[in-house]
């Protein structure tokens, strides 16, 4: 199965990179743009066909390495190969 994992900063955590992107968008004329937050997107191919086991495995990967849960949230979608 393929996991598509999205990692975002928790609400309330300062995102200076998001702010810089927002400033650049304003400079390009996108005046209505507000509250830009940036994050990470990770794809993982998992050798597991059982959705429940795949889900458990992805969650462990996120908790142990892919996200730092002090400041980041994660979400994911699973897609059958």
């Amino acid at each position: 199965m393929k996991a598509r994992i999205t990692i975002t900063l928790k609400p309330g955590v300062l995102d200076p990179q998001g702010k810089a992107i927002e400033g650049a968008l304003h400079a390009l004329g996108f005046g209505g743009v507000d509250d830009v937050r940036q994050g990470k997107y990770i794809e993982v191919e998992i050798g597991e066909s059982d959705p429940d086991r795949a889900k458990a495995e992805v969650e462990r990967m996120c908790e142990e390495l892919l996200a730092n849960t002090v400041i980041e949230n994660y979400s994911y979608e699973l897609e059958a190969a």
Partner: protein
Amino acid sequence: MKAAVVVFPGSNCDRDAKTVLTQVTGKAPAMVWHGDAELPEADLIVLPGGFSYGDYLRSGAMAAHSPIMREVIARAKAGTPVLGICNGFQVLTETGLLPGVLMRNRSLRFICKDVRLKVERNDTIYTRSYEAGEIVTIPIAHKDGNYFADDETLARVEGEGLVAFRYVSESGGLDDDANPNGSQHNIAGLYNERGNVLGMMPHPERLAEPALGGTDGAKIFTSLLEALH
């Protein structure tokens, strides 16, 4: 005192650490490669500065899971002193040995300059050569040094006196101007509850002999020598 310095791919202050440790203790530390599963007997373990694994994913995230770190974590939990400098501090937060996280500097810039630090306590193995409240000069060189923890963690860290160093002005004030990277409570260094683990963003090994322009950093190592023999 026997020290070991862990070398990750991308470490670049490992030899600076080796130089100061050799000068202060009279013995060269063991240089231990990250892929080794065995760590020699050591009274002190140093996680040096640098860009381990190219800062991929998050600074310190990959190094925190390298084979040698399992042993470092076990030793730290058993009470062996572990000093993490700059990238080493980032590795320590990623392992969970120290609370919080070091985020991108608020300016988004890499900052390399001397800063003033206040030594919060001098009753630890790392700071007994300093005066309590002493203002010292030690350089920083990082892009991800912006200390962040949730309110509950910050309250605990402050309540238990775990802050080792804070960024201050020349007169010792906690002004925002003296805070180079946006760290909460101007935190530059932090102990674990037991006091055997210290993580700090500034580089004491870079200002530890007169030829480098100052010796304020050397006292961390002389403190350790005195405490650990």
